[in-house]
């Protein structure tokens, strides 16, 4: 693999920055060059959040250029649809089936309908599964990452991610995060 271009998107408070840290670290563990770009500030007040990660043999810029994403990893369906205009032919979509409406937002059914027209869409009810099985919706990020690793839509190995979780996540939350990752990996 020459390089892998990933866009993470969601809403402030969904845990994008922690997810980014884990993926960054996993890429480093796997021996890749890695750079990522994130934005703080207003987004924490319920605005949209977009972060970019690039890893591979040689990475110059931390930002994924228009049309160059290999994977758009979305924690919310409207944000996935918003980001879809930036997709190229190769772009795959991993989308949390979770809807967080806002003023004048399109209705859920319409968003899902449009998402289903995309090539290579994985629509996964990760929030719901994590709520049911782990009583914690926030770790849906790790569930989705586990799913992505199992389906090989992200070129990282399970071991690298597990090592990264141990490195990045505070000790008292590690078990929960690993459980969520394993659940996603087992695709249950």
């Amino acid at each position, binding site marked *: 693999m020459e390089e892998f271009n990933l866009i993470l998107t969601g*809403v*402030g408070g969904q845990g994008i920055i922690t997810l*980014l*840290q884990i993926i*960054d*670290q996993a890429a*480093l563990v796997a021996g890749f*060059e*890695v*750079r*990522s*770009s*994130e*934005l*703080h*500030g*207003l*987004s*924490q*007040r*319920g*605005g*949209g959040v977009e972060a970019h990660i690039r890893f591979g043999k040689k990475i*110059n*810029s*931390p*930002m994924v*250029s*228009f*049309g160059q994403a290999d994977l758009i990893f979305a924690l919310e369906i*409207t*944000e996935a*649809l*918003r*980001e*879809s*205009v*930036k997709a*190229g032919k190769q772009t795959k979509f991993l989308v949390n089936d979770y809807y967080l409406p*806002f*003023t*004048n*937002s*399109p209705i859920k059914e319409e968003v899902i309908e449009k998402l289903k027209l995309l090539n290579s869409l994985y629509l996964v009810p990760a929030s719901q599964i994590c709520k049911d099985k782990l009583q914690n919706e926030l770790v849906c990020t790790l569930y989705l990452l586990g799913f992505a690793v199992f389906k090989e839509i992200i070129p990282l190995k399970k071991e690298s991610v597990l090592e990264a979780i141990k490195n990045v996540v505070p000790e008292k939350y590690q078990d929960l995060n690993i459980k969520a990752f394993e659940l996603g990996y087992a695709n249950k």
Partner: protein
Amino acid sequence: MAKKILLGNEAIVRGALASGVAFVSGYPGCPSAEIGDEFGKIASKYGIYAEWSTNEKTALEAAIGASFSGLKSLVNMKSFGINVCSDSLLPLAYTGTKAPMVIFVGDDPSCHSSAQSEQDSRGYAHIAKIPVLDPADPQECYDFTKLSFEISEKFNVPVILRVTTRATHQKMPVEFEESEKHNIQGKFERNVHQFVTMPPRVMEMKKELLEKLEKISQFTEKSKINKVVGKSGQVGVVATGVSYLHTMEALKMLGLDLPVLKLGFFYPLPEKMIASFIKDKKKILVVEELDPYLENEIKRLAKEQNIKTEIFGKDILTRIGELDAIKVFAALAKMIGKKVALPKIKVSDIPRRTARLCEGCPYWYVLPVLKRIAPEGTIFGGDIGCNMIGVLPPHNMYDYLFDMGASIGISHGISKSTNQKVISIMGDGTFFHSGIAGLINASYNKSKPLMVVLDNRITAMTGHQTNPGMGKTLMGENTQELQIEDIARACGVKNIKVLDPINVKELETTVKDFLAKDELSLIVCKRICALLERRQKK
């Protein structure tokens, strides 16, 4: 050497630690706040003093005091902070530093987390005449911080480390030295010759600064942070900061290996190096974000030295918004006359998910009441901080929004110019930052606006930093809790009410009552930030 994935701002902290920084002051903003926040956590461990100052001017002045007392200092602020502290920055350039000082300024091209203006703070280099370095990524954030302290030490001059959001909030593995705890006690020694800027001495000081700049220019010419990469050729690129990364990406997309002069120094420029780079080229493209400072300097240089190279820049690259690889790709292709297929940039038609007040935010109790109770035609002035959200739906409230503390200053002017009612809204952090000055002006000049301070007991928007109303310092020490109403009373405000906005009736009555008065009035709506309250309960 350790190696870890670091955010640009974390790398700055590491660089300052490795340089032996002993005094850190600043004012929080995006994209700089993580620096002060991090020092708040680690300062005691390393034997460092760190503070959130009341504003960027007091922050810089604190560091000047530290520098004159022999302590290495780091000042941190966002772009607009340099405007606030510039009054002290310019004389500091004249006096120079005693112990080294680095001033971190975080610019935010594209205004991801900024209102007010898309500021290119590099311009201050020309006004203050002090070195400015422009790192591209976290490794350079670390290296350039160390170098900035070295330059400051060598030339007794403050150094500005100007970093943009895409570097401050970029992550990559960074190699850095682990630092140890040190205990340094400063000592101020009288040196009127250096520290007093009265004429006629001040004119000598200007001459000394210009002479210093000459020496720094020679240093710049040899500095390794200005470098040429790529093959030799007749077409080249000069790039600085994050634009360099976009340039390398764009060249890869074009499948080209052109010579690139990467400048780490923005000021003073290595003029000889630039001249020798451009003189044998037919064409060069200057890649920089925002204003064409670099391009104009290079054009001047070419003219002076009779260099005929064709210089491209803002004629084919935007001055508005940040650059990216595709913008540079398009400009390069245009310059070399290569036909390329440019991706058709599409923008989603889904409405923006704008920021909103958090669930349980005390401002929810205030903004709708003000809007409902104030008579038709009342003018609302907003300020910087969480209250900015009052501009957005569902509030759609403000009639103007400027910079820190400006809501009261401008409301005074409107009040004096019209017979309209004006309500000036401001947060507690901003009140302490610069709102007080506007309040005094309004009071002194017998103005009549109603000022509403939304006191949520913390500087919330930038990520929950301490302020003088809280009784806590950055390093977690207890301190006196300054009362906004006491300050206002001392400023001569006669009508003052402090209330908990959850008591809607009381708020309504007070607004009506104060608006009916023909005098300056103040309501302090005191209720803790909902996020902070939840965090405290955990």
